[in-house]
């Protein structure tokens, strides 16, 4: 009953995965842990999409109630962060997508499934990979977004384990 949690990000056309990412900086490049000074987002543009997901290793009985939301970080004018739950991985794009705004409270959090589409991850069950579904994130700006760095954002991935 002790699952080990890993935050993973996938990038590229062939899906290269990085486990245990240290941040989800969003910028003008499709890469994990990117430096926003090196890859800033031009005002009016969007960031490259981020495809992140959880991976559970170790042992447990069941993982349930997986949720994702933005917990901190105020937007500046014209800025928004879009999100989709249980997305299908495709090569990340910088074209603005039509996803919804990322929820900002637990009560309306995105419900995350397993990679196999179940609402829980049962240890050792047939065909279970230990991955959650993908969460797709994208930061979008408009021409009215002020120049300079935007505020830092904080996101929560929550789950119950037995």
């Amino acid at each position, binding site marked *: *009953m*002790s699952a*080990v*949690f890993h935050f993973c990000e996938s990038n590229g056309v062939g899906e290269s995965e990085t486990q245990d990412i240290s941040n989800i900086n969003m910028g003008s490049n499709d890469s994990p842990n990117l430096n926003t000074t090196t890859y800033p987002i031009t005002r009016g543009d969007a960031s490259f999409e981020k495809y992140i997901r959880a991976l559970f290793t170790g042992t447990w*009985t*069941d993982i349930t109630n997986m949720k994702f939301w933005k917990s901190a970080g105020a937007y500046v004018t014209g800025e928004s962060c879009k999100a989709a739950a249980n997305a299908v991985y495709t090569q990340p794009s910088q074209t603005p997508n039509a996803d919804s705004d990322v929820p900002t409270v637990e009560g309306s959090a995105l419900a995350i499934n397993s990679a196999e589409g179940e609402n829980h991850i049962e240890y050792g069950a047939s065909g279970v990979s230990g991955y959650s579904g993908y969460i797709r994130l994208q930061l979008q700006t408009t021409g009215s977004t002020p120049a300079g760095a935007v505020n830092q954002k904080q996101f929560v991935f929550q*789950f*119950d384990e037995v």
Partner: protein
Amino acid sequence: MDNTMDIKLNSENNPMISLSFTWVAIFSDNTKIEQFENGIENKFQLVKDKFDKLAYFNLTDKKGHMFTIDLINGRIGYNYLLLPYLEKTNKQNVRLIFFRRHRVEIGTQDLKEKFHKITYHLGFQYLKDGKNQKIILQIDEQGNWVLGDN
């Protein structure tokens, strides 16, 4: 000849590292299952397989905190004392609630130590006047707790 075996325990293969509390399940047939027996972890699934016979469920840590769920009478004990807040009426169909809630935070800036908070949720649900009621303790990793119901 050296027959010693070098076992390197880490967070992947030594689950006790990440657990502040461990459980013991005691059944009405006088059997019990401990989460760790002889260094081997028993999965909670073994308890679920005998849920209908589960009588007591204890959660303990190394600091001396012990929480007990009495599923026969619908009571909660803390360090061998019954919590006085619960009504003592007969409760029907008392069933254990137990899980660990993980809250993992990540941001758009490097975090030297990623925030990962764990709370243990322990209690029971029962039927009262045909309605399901829940009484749950939320216990942090230091053993501080709050009691809630709905």
